[in-house]
């Protein structure tokens, strides 16, 4: 593949401007993993079906495997690695959604977890008062094979509650 050259991509990534050389055909997911060394976003299918690669693009949850890397250059991208740092709880501490997943057993094998967490954060960015049905639909594109979803929903609702009480 000598014909395709990597070209510089400047990305607003987790609150920082980062630059890497990225193949023109690379998805945002491949760029994050292979070029920016952010392996928290997972490749479960590479075709938009599983949700394990979910990141925030300008605050909204998207499957990064379906975004062309170079097309993300004008957007703010937040990955799971960027959550703890931008938490209302302060730098270094877990984001309330992460904390709620820990406390409520919202994870098992953990492979789908970053994607589920990013979908949940995307939901709470838009709707601080979700009910169970809102939470279910927010993770409607995230497959989890281990948990059966009950504890994931519990965790999202608990996180919403925590964030409301902190904001209030």
């Amino acid at each position, binding site marked *: 593949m000598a014909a395709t050259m990597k070209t510089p991509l400047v990305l607003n990534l987790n609150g920082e401007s980062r630059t890497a050389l990225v193949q023109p055909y690379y998805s945002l997911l491949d760029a994050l993993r292979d070029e920016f060394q952010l*392996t928290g976003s997972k490749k*479960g299918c590479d075709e938009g079906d599983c949700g394990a690669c979910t990141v925030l693009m300008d605050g909204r949850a998207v499957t990064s495997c379906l975004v062309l890397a170079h097309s993300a250059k004008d957007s703010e991208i937040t990955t799971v690695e960027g959550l703890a740092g931008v938490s209302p709880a302060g730098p270094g501490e877990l984001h309330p959604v992460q904390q709620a997943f820990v406390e409520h057993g919202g994870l098992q094998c953990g492979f789908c977890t970053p994607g589920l967490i990013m979908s949940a954060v995307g939901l709470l960015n838009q709707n601080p008062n979700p009910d169970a049905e809102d939470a279910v639909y927010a993770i409607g594109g995230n497959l989890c094979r281990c948990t059966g979803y009950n504890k994931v929903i519990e965790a999202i609702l608990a996180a919403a509650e925590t964030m409301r009480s902190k904001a209030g």
Partner: protein
Amino acid sequence: MPDFKTLGQSLPRVDATQKVTGRATYAADVYLPQMLMCKLLTSTVGHARVVKLDTSRALALPGVRAVITGHDFPDVLFGSGALRDRRIMARDEVFYIGDPVAAVAADDEVTAQEAIELIQVEYELLESVIDPLDAIEEGSPAVHRDMPNFEGYGFAMGGNNCTLLDADRGDVDQAFRDADHIFEENYRSQPINQGFLEPMACAANVEPDGRLTVWASTQGPFQVRAQLASVLDIPISRIKVNAMELGGGFGAKLRLAFEAFPAMLAMKTGRSVKLVNTREEAFTLNGPRLETNIHLKTGVMNDGTIVARESHSVFDVGAYLGAGPNSGVAHALGPYSIPNIRLRSYGVYTNKIYVGSYRASGVADMTFAVESHMDSMAHRLDLDPMEFRLKNVMSEGDTSVSGARLPANGLRETVEAVKQRLGLPKKLGENRGVGIAMGEWRSGSGPSTASINVNEDGTVSLLTGSVDISGSDTSLAQIAAETLGLDLGQVIVSTRDTDMTPFTGPSGGSRIVYSQGKAVQQAAEDARDKLVSLAAQRLGVPADALACRDGKVYVQDNPAQSMTLSQLARASLTSQQGPIIGLASLSSMPYAPVFNTQAAEVLVDTETGQVKVTRFVQAQDVGVAINPMSVVGQLEGGAVQGIGRALSEEMQIDPETGRVMNPSLATYLMPLAVDMPEIETILINVPSESGPFGARAVAEPPGFGPPAAIANAIYDAVGVRINELPFTAERVLAAIQGKNSLDRTMDVDSLKRREG
């Protein structure tokens, strides 16, 4: 319950923080210097001789560093079941669409894929067979003409029947003659994928000393090491397997998968090599479950007592024998006591992807048949399905199919709990129904070891060789903490590297907390005994006057007279006995059955055939829940997998070629959050006589019952019995319209005749 310190508490998983922050490292997350990427070429035909395999154009492509074929590997047959029936890579013959034929290592994945497409293969087609009911017939084309020569081949009928298991008890023929009623039914389960979210991945590197290091996505690092040594024909001591964080396995990652390809390419190139499966490959290359056809015949007396059971189960194993056929015998009775039995189970080769394991392989299939059959018989006898079951369930002291005596258990309590929660028996409204199913599993056994050393700050380091697939690291740490009187945070768990950790069996069959947990408990007791003995010397009191709790060893009658674990650990460094290490090693554990009862309420749309599960309740005897949150999580997740199996999941396989036709998560329909009812889980606590602190196995049984419970609920709702999984809208609608989709069943008479 005794006064536990950490046991029985819903503590967060020890690995939770690294997982929610994206820091957990899975095999695909391994990036090594100078790493090459690997891609595979696989067979495009179901059964053929390889007459030409030309890799020269691929090798000539810039960026390609090596190409390997079956001839690069030693001439070795290995197996994942009882037979050594497969090669790691095809030499002269391919046996299914997907059989690996060549592999490439290149500078990047795109170049590797381009090289794959430049490899020229010519096949000479051989006769193939796809349907297991064709394959088991006499005179069917042979998948493996060499079968009689395979190491391990023993009791079977020949042809494509590679294994035959049986169990007999009493006088079945006489019991059928004496029975007031005889019921015969056929059932079929579907090909199904484990659905792990993490596609299989592996990295390999040859170290400067010539040893091979493998980073694997596996449930069994020691099994991968042994099988890799076998197919590469090198000593086990030349291989180190790092079992990485595992993104779901459910049995699919118990054995050697693709590790040999990057390993061989690393040996050829001297560079590190990584292979990451695509989702399509997770469906087409990695052993799923295939269909099982089950025939049940049962003799019952007027009062509802079951007196005889005959079963014939045909397990499609695909191209190579794997798990499953054992369940055709071990689970043909369900949790019922039946005096006269004749049970037969057949493994049958077909030219399809070989079977792998999945959450107690074959048991869900058998449970679907047995528990649907129970319901069907109850209705025809005009008995309440639950009462009919209770009349026939096993009791303590009864003998299982394997001949083991049934110890104390909570079987009846699980039934009662579900009955109470749902208020059974009851009749729901129009097109609504309720159904139940019961399940049984033995707690998994096998080699287990643990080592615990006491650190100078009073914490302990627990070393185990078992991969965490179920929160087991946390449960093992809780067992160690409880035994030593520590908090969970004072136990550091390390696992998974075959150089560093003591040998242990794979994480499968719900064996880790039960068996490995026992080893951890014994190792912790060993460490505790040594701490107490040292304290006794230093404090000048007899050892039996001491207790170990809250980070101290103290005199029970005078707690102020004590030494902290930190003081003892430091003292041990210069003591006569030396630093404190607790060790334990065991090979097998007693039979500790696990029983559960599951119930589904459904709403059937009679115009579309759509089935919606509106409520799901389950009760399981878990013995003692080491970590209730983790236990409930396993039971919820297992139940949802079972609901997927019941309603939507099916690998569609082309009946002509054996090709998997829906190898994507958009077409293979696993449950999403929007599909699921809330799962209500009730824990029953009848401590096992043998497990650590009375724990039983947990994870396998919740997946067993949903297909039958939902089938029985559909019958209750709309009066049709569906004998074939899954219950898609199309199939349910056809059944409502009077068409049973199970149009082909096995020829039991012919099987019996051939047995002679």
